[in-house]
């Protein structure tokens, strides 16, 4: 009976660890989203500094770009959750 615990856990144990590693690796993708969001707002500041009269219009575009980038950013946690809890 101790045999059972000794012999059966290792494969599942490996699977569990592999899941955790995979979920962790999935979150690396957030780095790209961080760069993207930073890029959106730095471009906004640049363009507003050059032409302040377009501030309002560019802000609308920036928010749209931010929302699109952020949507992609959320793919990373989604993959992590799917790996952790679905499989």
């Amino acid at each position: 009976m101790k045999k059972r615990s000794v012999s059966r856990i290792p494969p599942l144990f490996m699977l569990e660890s592999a899941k955790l590693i995979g979920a962790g690796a999935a979150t690396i993708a957030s780095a790209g989203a961080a760069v993207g969001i930073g890029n959106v707002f730095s471009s906004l500041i640049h363009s507003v500094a050059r032409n302040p009269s377009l501030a309002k219009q560019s802000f609308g575009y920036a928010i749209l770009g931010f929302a699109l980038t952020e949507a992609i950013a959320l793919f990373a946690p989604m993959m992590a959750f799917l790996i952790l809890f679905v499989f």
Partner: protein
Amino acid sequence: MFEKFPRLFLFYENSLNSSATSSRTPSQSTTTITDSSLQSSDTQGSYDGIFEDHPGLNPSSERIVELQSDIREKLEELLINKSPDAAMVAAEALHGESDNIPFMEFILNDLNTNGVESESYKDALAALVKMVPSPLEQFEIIPFFPMKIGDLYFSFTNPSLFMLLTLSLVLLLLYFVTKKGGGNSVPNAWQSLVELIYDFVLNLVNEQISGLSGNVKQKFFPCILVTFTFSLFRNPQGMIPYSFTVTSHFLITLGLSFSIFIGITIVGFQRNGLPFLSFLLPAGVPLPLAPFLVLLELIPHCFRALSSGIRLFANMMAGHSSVKILSGSAWTMLCMNDLFYFIGDLGPLFIVLALTGPELGVAISQAHVSTISICIYLNDAINLHQSDSFL
């Protein structure tokens, strides 16, 4: 593969014992071996009493292992929609560390004769609920009134309920606002909300779809307004605790985006006739390049149908799951009855509060983004290659 394991190991253990017998006292060496191996593999739970048991010397242990694997197999059979490790966890919870053969025989009998109705099965389910708390549970579809029309599964489920709820909410709002022949000339709060939404979508359509006279453009307005209002009200409603997020289901968002995609293609053919197919080839491309470019243009075009569905689904699912995980951790810390955790609990609690704000923002901005992308696709289908859009 799994059922082979216990016996294999028993076998191994026996041979190990016999080799140990030649050198030292058998019982001692067995205990030390199991001791160390247990420590390395014991992940959770307590294996009380395991040290008193000497499997090599115990003639009934093979029967115990057999019974345990039988229980697990039976549970695997019964828990069809669960994974094998879930069945293992359940089996573990059922027989625990008991080496009481009649008890396990009783469990096995109960499972075999009563199946899903048995007490043991219910216990196993309860153990599963306790041991595998998944943040994805909230997305479970539960049929309220099971119905079947032929082979079609036509049940009234919780997504249907919440979709009806959203729809009735919006319709009621519109009804009360326009009650006396179109509302007041000085709007109250509710009326200005509806006017705001209407105005917002109207501006969106006018801005994004170009090259048509106002009247023609407005043909598309009702469809876009309905899509926008639905996701605008549907997404934040999912943030209410214990409610259900319809748009977190791939099936539903994909159904929405695919039907819109098909509709846009039909509109494109209607407006342009067969020349609509020229959207596959940018203007002024040398002919030898055409086959590649058609393929290259076709892939992103078809991917549009997928992308707007996936975007909405991923946003809703990831956001709701992370809020659920964090609030679960806050609740667990609060329930630990420890002053240190009680004070530290403010951290996760604050993060949950802070996350709820962006989550609402995401819910609303996703409605906006998906509407804009629908307008852009529509514009592309109507005005071939003359779009000045930035996406």
